[in-house]
């Protein structure tokens, strides 16, 4: 299977990764090689096989709906790139 540069550009956008044209070309070549490896799967007949999403056949454990964590805003925001008045700062989204 071979990918086009347009495919790669689209995936990079979905993944929120900035890429220049050289990087897109390199990624296209490498991803095509990887997808050739992955294509081996297509020959397998999996009719009637239940997908296995998890290593153990156990159901999700539930807990009581109550607060278990204490507020650590200051500790968490101390390692943030940019904060102000207890809020995380990002570029303006709404005009």
């Amino acid at each position, binding site marked *: 299977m071979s990918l086009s540069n347009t495919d790669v550009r689209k995936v990079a956008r979905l993944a929120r990764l*900035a890429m220049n044209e050289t990087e897109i070309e390199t990624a296209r070549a490498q991803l095509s090689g990887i997808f050739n490896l992955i294509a081996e799967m297509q020959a397998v007949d999996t009719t009637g096989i239940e997908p296995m999403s998890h290593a153990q056949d156990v159901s999700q454990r539930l807990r009581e709906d109550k607060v278990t964590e204490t507020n650590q805003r200051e500790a968490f925001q101390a390692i943030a790139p940019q904060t102000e008045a207890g809020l995380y700062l990002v570029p303006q989204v709404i005009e």
Partner: protein
Amino acid sequence: MINTSIKQLSAALAAKKISSAELTQLYLDRIARLNPELNAYITLDEEKSLAQARAADERLANGDATGLTGIPIAQKDIFCAKGWLTTCGSKMLHNFVSPYDAHVIAQFNNAGAVTLGKTNMDEFAMGSSNETSHYGAVKNPWDTARVPGGSSGGSAAAVAARLCAAATGTDTGGSIRQPAALCGISGLKPTYGVVSRYGMIAFASSLDQAGPMARSAEDLALLLNVMAGFDERDSTSLQREKEDYARDLNKPLNGLRIGLPKEFFAEGMGSDVAQAVEAAIAEYKKLGAVIVDISLPNTKLSVPVYYVLAPAEASSNLSRFDGVRYGYRAPEYGDLADMYEKSRAQGFGAEVKRRIMIGTYVLSHGYYDAYYLQAQKIRRLIAQDFTEAFKQCDVIMGPTSPSTAFKLGEKGDDPVQMYLSDIYTIAVNLAGLPGMSIPCGFGANNMPVGLQIIGNYFDEARMLNVAHQYQLATGHHDCAPQNIGL
């Protein structure tokens, strides 16, 4: 003093032959001498380590010590440790000082173990050679022109060079077993769900599992006793009775049924690796084991299945790194989308970006059924192969890796070649089974070879027994590299 088992170190501490502070200083001095070349550690903090050692000495004096109190351990840099820089081998987390402890870290702290430092690793645990680390490649102590394996390569190199008494690792597709094999040490990936993933930076959550790396199976058992156990903060942590993983170490191996999958002994394995593994099997026969020929027919498919499922889960897990709440943010950007795209492009390395792209693609509209769902179905076939095999045998054995440690840069340009070297380890993660690697001799260029032992679900105690009996009968695990100043 340094080149000995945890049990003996612990006995020396209890007998006051040495204090934990002195022992810790011995290791720190060795690290100062050898780490500039090996690059096994990313972060060291002598003051923190020595403070923990002094606290351990108090516990020893007060008589409330455990078997690990005062023992200096290295922690893979994937585990969040409060107050420690925790980078996961990435520029993305170059400034992330963790505000909390991972469950594994807390367990070692509670046992009184000393953290010597945080070990180097492939970026976000994605790699089999440790060359994807933002902090530089780790060198193999047996030959510094060669890789230590990955992703827990720093931990493996640190144990091999005796820069710690033992270390932690994580294994998503072989990241404990393969570096253990390439560095000539012992490593164990437990059954999925046995060790809590809380505070362990996520790569592929349905496959990731933490485990110990050490000089011997006996040491591994002591470490696993501390690491294993239910933790409600990990939704996949299993509620099971606490067990003593050292309980069966001394059982004889008479009548043990060892399954040899024909697919593991086919093309692709180096002849030097084959020779060492076959010699190990012969040793097991002498110890009373019987050999059963088995088949794991879908082994070859484990590579394509893994390289769909692991990147899919990674692309989702790594979406949290957005330059907003912690970690790297690009210095210059326009709007919010631009900030995300630039921060992620600059913060992640090439291999991580590659896997995020694969994962994003296989999960995207129109491709989900053909890739992700098909991979999950074949994952079940792979798991069923093992279920069938374990009807005929107690443990499965084979090589851990098709070759011994390769040269730095040797597989740099072709990701597919690197991925194919995971052929013997990743099926175990897909099935969720426990697997380990122990040293079984040397191959070409006098580099270590690893024997892989795969057990049935929750059969860690038996696997450790199987490994320990071999280590009582042979001396491969006691071999140490030259030039590490022992």
